[in-house]
């Protein structure tokens, strides 16, 4: 009799354990981490939690879409709201791993032009630029052509381990004008030109995967020059570093909030996205972080602009806008080719 009771108790525990996450899981937001997410946790996620009495948790990823694809495929969705880059958003929407957003919950009018897509609500702008540590190397490259000059600028450079951004950098270094860049990169000759150019500095490059690495590699002296996320460089400068940011080397784009398909908290996720793109929490966020929001009122607020000289939107004229359509179309091919090239 006793054993039966134990078995039954065990069964109940097992059933509860299996059912619990589905019932009582916190609303889960996943982003790219770093200083942005630390500040977003306070001003966006937890502000929403406090206002609505909902528990919100957040986690970090490096943009690996496979995790999203596999959780949708396995129908075990553990992330509700996710921050994605534009091409991944468009492809993921086509591939059915993101929900179409509910524009009756999210106010579509508050965004800057092209700030939304079927599956995504514009979150914040981001960019990468060239920088170095003058304490170690007094003079650094002022543009991408300089970055290829290993005689004048000896030492390791660190670039993103991926086709997106790195191929653009290679063509800019090869003298392609920003206006023609994607036209050139769409042709087989242009792609060959970019990879040939990368061949020339391959032995001098350390490749980074996560956004924290460029700063670590510069900070430890492992690399002398880096192409890294400008928000993180600004944060490092706030914390005492003196890395000059070469705004003329800016490549920038927007990240979007998306809802993972079949999320059990879909309705709540839509509400959270509406909150996170509202003017008030974003204005609060702008006090602590050089955010470039896709909310038009905040993006055009003179007080926010004056306080955040590092907003990528302020430097849009100097920089190159990363072409979403190009990467939707060519992303899969070029990323695979880049990875193969890298391993050679």
């Amino acid at each position, binding site marked *: 009799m006793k054993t039966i009771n134990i078995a039954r108790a065990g069964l109940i525990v097992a059933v509860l354990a299996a059912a619990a996450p589905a019932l009582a899981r916190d609303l889960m937001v996943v982003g790219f981490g770093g200083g942005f997410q630390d500040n977003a946790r306070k001003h966006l996620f937890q502000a929403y939690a406090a206002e609505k009495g909902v528990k919100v948790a957040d986690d970090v990823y490096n943009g690996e879409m*496979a995790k999203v694809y596999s959780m949708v495929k396995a129908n075990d969705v553990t992330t509700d709201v996710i921050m994605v880059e534009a091409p991944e958003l468009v492809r993921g929407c086509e591939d059915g791993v993101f929900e179409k957003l509910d524009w009756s919950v999210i106010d579509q009018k508050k965004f800057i032009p092209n700030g939304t897509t079927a599956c995504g609500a514009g979150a914040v702008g981001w960019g990468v630029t060239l920088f170095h540590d003058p304490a170690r190397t007094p003079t650094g490259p002022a543009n991408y052509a300089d970055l290829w000059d290993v005689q004048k600028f000896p030492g390791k450079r660190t670039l993103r381990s991926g086709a997106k951004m790195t191929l653009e950098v290679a063509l800019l270094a090869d003298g392609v004008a920003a206006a023609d860049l994607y036209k050139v990169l769409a042709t087989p000759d242009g792609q060959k030109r970019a990879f040939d150019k990368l061949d020339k500095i391959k032995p001098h490059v350390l490749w980074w995967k996560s956004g924290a690495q460029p700063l670590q590699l510069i900070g430890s002296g492992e690399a002398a020059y880096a192409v890294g996320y400008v928000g993180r460089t600004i944060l490092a400068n706030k914390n005492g570093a003196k890395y000059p940011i070469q705004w003329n080397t800016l490549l920038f784009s927007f990240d979007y909030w998306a809802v993972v398909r079949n999320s059990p908290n879909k309705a709540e996720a839509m509400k959270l996205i509406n909150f996170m793109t509202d003017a008030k929490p974003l204005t609060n966020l702008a006090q602590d972080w050089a955010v470039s929001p896709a909310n038009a009122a905040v993006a055009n607020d003179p007080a926010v602009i004056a306080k955040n000289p590092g907003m990528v939107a302020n430097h849009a004229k100097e920089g190159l806008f990363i072409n979403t359509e190009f990467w939707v179309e060519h992303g*899969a091919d070029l990323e695979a080719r880049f990875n193969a090239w890298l391993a*050679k």
Partner: protein
Amino acid sequence: MSSRLASRRNVMAAALIAPLFLLVALSFLAPLATTLYRAIEDSDFSLALPKTSRSLQQWDGVALPPEEAFRSFVEELRQAQQDQAAGAILNRLNFEETGLRTLLLQATRASGRLAEPYRDSMIALNPRWGDPALWRLFKRATGPFTSLFLLRSLDLKPTDQGVAKAAAQDAVFLPLFWRTFEISLVVTILCALLAYPVAYTLSILPQGWANVGMMLVLIPFWTSILVRTTAWFIILQREGPINALLMAMTLVDQPLTMIFTRFAVYIAMVHVLLPFAILPLYSVMKGLKPDYMRAAASLGAPGWKRFLRIYLPLTMPGVAAGSLMVFMLSVGFYITPALVGGPGDQMVSSFIAFFTNVSVNWGMAAALATLLMAMTGVLVVVARLVVPGFRSGGVKA
């Protein structure tokens, strides 16, 4: 003992090993079978476009497929696009031939303008639709099985005429397999050379000191592989302790580049795997009776001859067991080369991770994993035949 008793014992024994058998089946055989299956299964096309698949399967593959195939292709692709279900098929086709994603998306975007006869209006949209070779590629993709992933893992590709070499920019995997086995072999040899004197010393030390020595081997063995690899990262970096020491001793005037090199991969992998070579050797050496060596000495054999003719052959099974373990573990190494190696030091597992985590191509990930396992198996079988001491019980006293 009666036969009834014996058969009861057999039932008891079977019941006792049943949980273990079940565990092995569930945790080892099932994932293995799934991986093997994933490497050859090909159902994306037939799942997303079932009617098209049926009519393509009936098509003889010579001239263009019938109008019916064109029509169902346009309708089903449009439907899949609306249901947000076209991703898998686009990825599958684009992997086989770069550019097909664009071609298919162009057709779905223009699908409102396409009309009967679909064959003519599609060819008017893009002449590629009039190429029977394209439709033969689709026909091959209707499954249920494909050789595409396994062939591509060997830098080959399936074509109408059979098998051909893959395009130069896709042909990376054979050199990668070669590099994987090269790194594994070097690590195995280094481990065997380093483990031998360590195991010997441990086996002749007095008990107390042997225990201390054993702890020095076991404590790193119990430490997480990630911790040990990260430690090497710190030690070997440009401004790490080794470079600081070399600079202070003015042996070098520029810090040496050690991190993100093959050297760093070797040193970290050897450190991680060394206990696997030491432990089997130690147990073999510990179990050796000193009589053989004494007998050889009493017959007048000098030290080097005693070692070469008696001690080494007798300890070969330990070397073989340790080397086998180190080699098999090396072949699958991922995190150590990823952390301390450069892009030219990555092994097959890095591409398995790429196809699993980044490009969501599980067919390729499974094909690479299957081939890696098969090649390792073949190498081990060959090693058993060639290397002395590999067969267990190969001690010829």
